[in-house]
Structure formats: C-alpha cells, structure tokens
C-alpha cells in the first residue's frame, strides 16, 4: 500500500473554534502511544464517505513530543470537494478513523539563528507545533499572523497570552497588514523565514524575500493544494492495463486508487513529488497544478502529478 504507514485512531474531542474552523483530537484506538513528530509535519486523514474515500493532509498542531494525542484544525471549505465538510458535519466523538504516520515537508531548519513565522488564516496550524518544539529548547522565533477578522483568528488568544512578545496579529478587516519589506530588512543574519497561508501570501513573501537578497535556502513555505474539480476525462494506465475515467469531483490519483491501482503518494497536495508519473502518450492539454515539476517539465508533456493535476483532451496514457 502506498503512502506513509497507517494508524487506527479514535476521535476523542471535537472543538468548534469559530464559524469556519474546528479542532479534532485523535488518540490511538489500541491505547498505545502515537509517534513523536517534528513541527510542521502533517498527517493524511482517511475519510470514508459512502462510496467515496478522501485522503486529505492536515498539519499536526499539537506538541510534537506529546504521544498521547494528535490534534488538527480543519477549516470548512464550502466550495471544496467535500473533505472539510465531511469532517465538520459527519465526524463525531468516538468515531474510528485511519490517519497516516506524520510526514514533514515543512520542517524547521535548526541551523537558523532565528525563525520568522508568517501565517495567513488556517496556515497558523503548522506553526503551533513548531512553536511548541522551539519553546522546548528556548529557540528564537517571532510570529506574524494575519487573519481576516478578529472572530476568525483561530488561536490568537492562546498565542498572545502565552507569547506576548513574539506574537504579532494583523486583522484584514481593520486594514492591518504585515509591513513585509521593513520586517525582512530588520532580521539578523541567520534568520530563516517560514510562510504558510493562501497562495497569494506565499508568492508575496517568496518574491519579496528573494528581492531583498534572502538566500533561497532561508525561505520555507508550505502550500497544500486541494485537488480542484474539473471536467471528467479518461486515462489509460499502461502498466495496470486499465482504462479509468476520472470524475468531476475526484483527482486522477483518487480515480486510480478507486480502480485498485496502488499508485505512490505522500502529501496529496502537489508538494512532495512522490506521485510523479511518466506520460507515455497524450493528445490534449494538461492542467498542471502542482509546485513540484518546474515550468519546463509542465510544458514538456512527459510528466504529471496525479494528486492535483488534470487533463483535457482525447487520449492520455500513463506509465502506471
């Protein structure tokens, strides 16, 4: 079976935080300890919703050294494909679920002299675990957290009361914005910047930091892309000798899994590169949405990331 190793868990607590965000706590169903992880790690949560199985990644936000329980925060997306809605409306305390071992694609660079965290909205979650990790050995960090409104500012109270000197909050509706150029220019040598939030914010931070002369290795970002719905299409899987159709609301990867093909994956969000698949033949257009392949590869027609990318056209034959 592809993906990280699985853990059977029970939902032990559900806490609505505001209109959009709800926190879920998981404990191992067999009562044993969960693996420790490193701040920034995510788990892939399996959601069995009738005939549909969704596997969505969520950042772990609990203390990485706490082996008694994991917590995640899920933002409801009414326009999405239903994973977050399923979590919000169908999952109840006591339910048994399956999650993956933690996988970290957004880890701290512990060589940094200082960690500068920039969060937008639900992008706060990986930082909550990273802050707990850094606090254990007195790490040097600073958080700038932008939220749409005060009422949607998940964990703002906890952060400002526990870390009043490190936490800076910005509310969009009060016209408060991060003074990014100034902030970046004032950082001591050896600072690493980490950004998690909407795509626009990630692009803004990456571009501004690069223009300010920050080394590429000192700029870290995490953007989970949820697979977007699209027109149905057909795919021939050459190795499995199967022709499958990808429905409007499922990803190519999910369609392969539904057909019983054990395709590799890890993040399911276009970031990790694990599901990279060779294209044998095609006639039509790729809709590449990952940030794993580079522009040349996107234009080349040789590779596709089935977790988030789609296809429109007559034929697509994959080496899978």
């Amino acid at each position, binding site marked *: 079976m592809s993906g990280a190793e699985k853990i059977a868990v029970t939902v032990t607590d559900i806490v609505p935080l505001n209109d959009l965000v709800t926190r879920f706590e998981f404990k191992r169903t067999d009562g044993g300890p969960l693996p420790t992880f490193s701040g920034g790690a995510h788990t892939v949560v399996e959601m069995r919703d009738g005939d549909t199985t969704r596997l969505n990644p969520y950042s772990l936000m609990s203390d990485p050294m706490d082996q008694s329980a994991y917590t995640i925060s899920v933002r409801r997306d009414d326009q999405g494909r239903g994973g977050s809605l399923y979590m919000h409306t169908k999952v109840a305390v006591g339910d048994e679920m399956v999650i993956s071992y933690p996988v970290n694609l957004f880890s701290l660079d512990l*060589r*940094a*002299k200082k960690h500068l965290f920039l969060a937008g909205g639900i992008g706060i979650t990986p930082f909550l675990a990273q802050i707990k990790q850094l606090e254990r050995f007195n790490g040097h960090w600073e958080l700038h957290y932008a939220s749409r409104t005060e009422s949607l500012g998940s964990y703002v109270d906890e952060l400002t009361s526990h870390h009043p000197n490190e936490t800076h909050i910005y509310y969009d509706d009060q016209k408060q914005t991060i003074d990014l150029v100034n902030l*970046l*220019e*004032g*950082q*001591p*040598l*050896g*600072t690493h910047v980490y950004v998690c939030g909407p795509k626009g914010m990630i692009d803004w931070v990456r571009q501004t930091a*690069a*223009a*300010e*002369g*920050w*080394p*590429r*290795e*000192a700029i870290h970002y995490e953007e989970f892309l949820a697979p977007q719905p699209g027109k149905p299409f057909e795919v021939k899987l050459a190795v499995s000798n199967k022709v499958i159709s990808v429905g409007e609301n499922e990803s190519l990867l999910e369609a392969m899994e539904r057909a019983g093909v054990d395709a590799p994956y890890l993040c399911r969000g276009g970031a990790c590169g694990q599901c990279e698949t060779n294209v044998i033949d095609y006639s039509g257009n790729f809709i590449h949405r990952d940030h794993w392949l580079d522009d040349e590869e996107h234009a080349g027609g040789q590779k596709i990331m089935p977790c988030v990318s789609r296809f429109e056209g007559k034929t697509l034959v994959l080496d899978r």
Partner: protein
Amino acid sequence: MTKFTFPESIKSRPIYGTLEAREGSAHLLVADAHGAEALLEVATPEMMAKAHIMYIPKGEDFEAKLRALKPASFYSGPSYAAAEPRLLKTLEDARMGLQVYLAGTEGLMGQAMNAAMAAGIPYTAIQTEHRGSVARRMQCVHCKGITEDVETDPFVCSHCGLNLFVRDHYSRRLAAYQGVCIDAEDPGNVPEPKGIYE
C-alpha cells in the same frame, strides 16, 4: 595568469565560480592578492554604495584601484588572522539580505566562508571566485597543525616536521585540505617535491 582551471577531482574538493552582482541590502567583499581583480570586475556603483571591502594585499598592488571603487567602507590588513575580528564583528552586526563575495586564494575563501556560515549564511548563498596563487591551506592529519600557502607536494609539516602528501580531501569545517604522511612505511623515501598541479 591569475585564473586557473582546476583539474576535476573528488566530490570533497571545493568548486569556485565567477562572482556576479546580486540584489542585497548590503554587500561584504573579502579578497586577498589577485582576488582584487574579481572584485574590480563585479563591482557596480549601486553595490559599492552599500559595500564593505576587506582586502589582504599579500604584496600585490591593488589597494588604490579598490579604493577608487568608492565602497562605503574599506579595510586593508596584513593577514586573514589580522582581519578576522573585524570580519566576525561585521557578520555579527549584519542583517538578512547581506551578500557575501569571496575572491582570491583557497585559504582565504575557505576561512571567510567558514565565518559567514557560522554567522548563519547557507554556503550555497556565498559566492566565491578563485584568483591568483593555487597554494593550499593544509592540515596535518597527524599533529592537526595547519600550514598555510602550501605550494608543493609533498611538503614538510610546519608543526611536526613529517613529510606530507597533499590530498584533495577538503574539510569545510577547518577550511583546509588533508596532508597525510607519505613515508610512514619507508621513512626517508620521499618523492621530489613538485608543484601541486604539475
């Protein structure tokens, strides 16, 4: 001839590039001897307005030309050891966006790179360009003593007196190549020293 094409070697051997002007909030340029030529080529008025040049002439006559670039600050000193406290203080006070350019001999670039890395700059973000002498900074693996500016292979350790073979095995931590006793099994059987790349 101040540019030299190093022969291909093992993975541990550093590879040097060509300096290019980069965007940055400040620029730190460190060079010795003919490394000045690389600084003269990369310097732009915009860069110099925010630049600190540290130069170790080692008998070469580039100081007037470097000063004519009008860097915001200029330092000239007799050796890397003499310049090091100033370099460390400059890095300690620096902010993100600082660009580091190193040019000249391997020993100078290696040691300055070490200081910049310790200050938190990833080594991939530090630019280097080799110019001038191909002499190496060597560490005797037996007594751990460092011998600067080694031009021949083999050479005599300036600390313990052993005859050392010049290896391409490099330590980024020490900013030095490894020197290994060449006549351990047959004392006195030492090949005639010749230039490292001859």
